[in-house]
Every structure is written in C-alpha cells, then in structure tokens.
C-alpha cells in the first residue's frame, strides 16, 4: 500500500511538473520535483532499485523536455551516485543534513548543466546562472514541504537501515 501511495505521488508530481497550470510555470522555471525524488530514492531505497527508479524518471523527463539530448539521465544518476557516495560519512535522516544534501545535489546538477551548455550550446556560464538560481530557490522552497510527505511512506526502510547499522556494529565488536 505504501509503495502504491509512493508511486501515485511520483505520478502526481510528474504530471504537475509537466502541467501548464503550475504557478511560476509562465517563464518555464519551476521547482525540480524529479531532483527531490532522486534525493529521496538515494536516501531511502536500496542501491539498484533506487538507481533504476531514478533512471526511469529521468528517461520520462527526457521524453517531455526539449529535443533528445540524453541530459537528464546523466544529471539525475550523477546526483543519485554522488549522494550514495556520501553514505558512510553523512547521517541522511537529520532534517538539516537533508537540506544540505539538496544544496549539494543542486551543485552537482549545476556542474553538469554548465558542462553541457558550455560545450554543446556555447553558452557563457553567467547566462545559465540566473535561471538556475531561480530554479534552485523554487526547489529548496518546495523541498522541506515535499520531503516529509514522502518520508512516512518509507519509514520501514529507515528502521531497516538502523537495524542494519546495529548488526554491523555488533559484527565489528565480535571480530
């Protein structure tokens, strides 16, 4: 049931992302819900499952956005893997850390966008900075509201991870 609720929420967010009636959609800039879902998947899901969800979401995004550039799978998979690489050093379940994680993810996204827009479309970096900052601001505003909405759907996962940590600590002590 929780999984169904999660995927229903993902569908709603995706439709909202495409819908023309979303506020602030007039200028084409809106919060990046897919990035928030990528962060959520990186924190809550097992590695392969999370990567697959992020890949599918980014492929869907690719279908609806612009011409075919293959940009989104690169962005969201990189965000996913960057977060996973921090797994050992970072407590993902603290609200402040999660917010920092969102900023970190936006930075990863910016680096890839900068690379893409500089080398493929020959943009100067300050040209993408203004829309990027706007988009980031919207995303960071939505993030604290949306993330707790997603959170309860996978609390079990969190408990499992806590248990896994306890088992690991005991194993180390035995050795």
């Amino acid at each position, binding site marked *: 049931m929780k999984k169904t609720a999660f995927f229903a929420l993902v569908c709603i967010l995706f439709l909202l992302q*495409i*819908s023309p009636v979303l506020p602030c959609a007039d200028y*084409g800039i809106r919060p990046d819900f897919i990035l928030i879902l990528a962060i959520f998947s990186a924190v809550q899901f097992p590695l392969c499952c999370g990567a697959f969800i992020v890949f599918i979401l980014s492929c869907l995004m690719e279908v609806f956005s612009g011409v075919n550039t293959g940009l989104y799978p690169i962005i969201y998979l990189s965000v996913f893997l960057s977060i996973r690489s921090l797994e050992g050093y970072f407590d993902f379940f603290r609200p402040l850390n999660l917010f920092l994680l969102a900023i970190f993810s936006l930075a990863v996204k910016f680096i890839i966008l900068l690379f893409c827009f500089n080398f493929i479309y020959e943009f100067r970096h300050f040209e993408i900075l203004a829309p990027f900052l706007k988009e980031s601001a919207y995303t960071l505003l939505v993030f604290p509201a949306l993330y707790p909405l997603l959170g309860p759907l996978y609390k079990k996962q969190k408990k499992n991870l806590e248990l896994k940590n306890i088992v690991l600590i005991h194993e180390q002590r035995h050795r």
Partner: protein
Amino acid sequence: MQFFIKNKRSLFIAALLLVALTLFAKGIEQKTKRSFFDRIVLTLFSFPLSITNKSITAISSAWHHYFFLVGLNDENIALKKRVDGLSIDNQLLREQSDENKRLRELLVFRKKFEHKMLPAEIIGRDPSGWFKTVLVDKGTLDGVSRDAGVITPDGVVGCVIEAGLNSSKVLLITDINSYIDVLIKRTRTHGIVVGRGEQTCYLSYVLKTEEVALDDIIVSSGINTVYPKGIIVGTVTKIKKDRSGFFQSIEIKPAVDFSKLHEVLIVLREPEKQK
C-alpha cells in the same frame, strides 16, 4: 562468472550509467531524432495530461471564484454568496467570450492562408526550465506530422518535433535548438532566428553592411516549407555591431507571448510533402 555475481550491483549501476552516456552521446549527434519509445510515452501521457490540465483548471477556477471569498464578514455572507454565484457566471461568460474571440481570430487568420490549419490546445509544458517545448492535444490521428509549423494570429510559435497518436511536442522558437529562416520585412534581408532559451531570440547571419533598425519586423521567409511565408516572428529590440566578425548581433522579441499561449494552429503539411 563469480566476479559478475559478486559485483552485480556495481555492474548494474555501471550499465545504467553506460546507457545514460550513450543516450547523451547519441543526443548530441542527432538532436531531433526521436525513438519509438518516445512516441509511445507521449501517446500514453496525453490522456492523463489532458485530464490533469482540465481538472487543475477547474479546481483553480473554483478556488479563485468561490473558496477564496469564504472568509469575509458574516453579515455579508448571504449577499456575497449571491455575488459569488453571479461573478462565477460572469467570469465563465467572460471566459467563453474571450475564448470565442480568440477562436474567431484563429478562424479569420486560417482563412487568410492557403495552408490547411488545425486548431490545437496546449496541454503540457516542458518539465524543466532549460528547454522550451509544449505539448498540444493533436497528433498523427488528426494529420499532424513531424516538422509541421505551429503558429497563432500573433506570429510563429514553433514546430512539431514529435507527433504521438493524439498529442504532439512542439519546439518553441525560443528553445536553444530552434532555427528559423526569416526575412526583415522592410529590407527583405535574410537571416536565421536562433532561440536562446530565454524570452528573447537572436537574429543571426545578418551582415554588418545590411541596414537594420529597431522595431523592424521579422517575418518567416517560407523557404523551408515549415511555416507559410510572411508570418511575423518578432521585432528587433537590440542591435549590436562588434568590431570583429562579419555579422551583427541582433536581439528580437518574439511576436507571441509564450506565457499566455493557450490555443495554436498547426500548419498541416500536404500529403506528398509528408513523405
């Protein structure tokens, strides 16, 4: 074999990354070619998108016309209810009248040109702010094909880059991948309008020796058969002549206000041209 079993998770991630990189490399190589998968997804999503669009519009209309007015003075509740009802009716009538006006304009505009034109409604926008595309509610079943021009009475909107069965994706002229062959109406000078992903576009490949003035009107040249000849693309808002280079740097304001785009006309291509 054991290596594969032992590292299956890492291999899975590596495979996903490889697919993503291949898509990226292929995307750079052939920017406008779309796969069968894309067409299927577009077709599948057109129905929920259309429903979402209509329901959100209905909810937002209900919110703005009713719920927003609930928290006012108790004394006026009865009176306000009546006013609300009337204002909803009024609003709906006005909306219908506006829609009628827009559709009538579209009809008059359609009759002016020889090309067959199909009215369509916007049902979705680009999910990111980086590219400029919209989804319309007409597809191959209605006769829409790839590279069909999309216009409004105000001017050029863009062209169809992907046609599903009952929806199509339109690349706006402001997108960074958009190029249109145009003429400066006053001087008949040729140029190419290039999108920059913003609200404005650039007119490229106009020699410094050519005369261009502010407020000059830019129209489609009709060369590439995507758009009929003479449709307004925009007006010149900024001209810059650098010391180096052969060409002028010209900024143009599109004739169409993309933030208020609701209905468009798709220029249907003739059957022999579709091949």
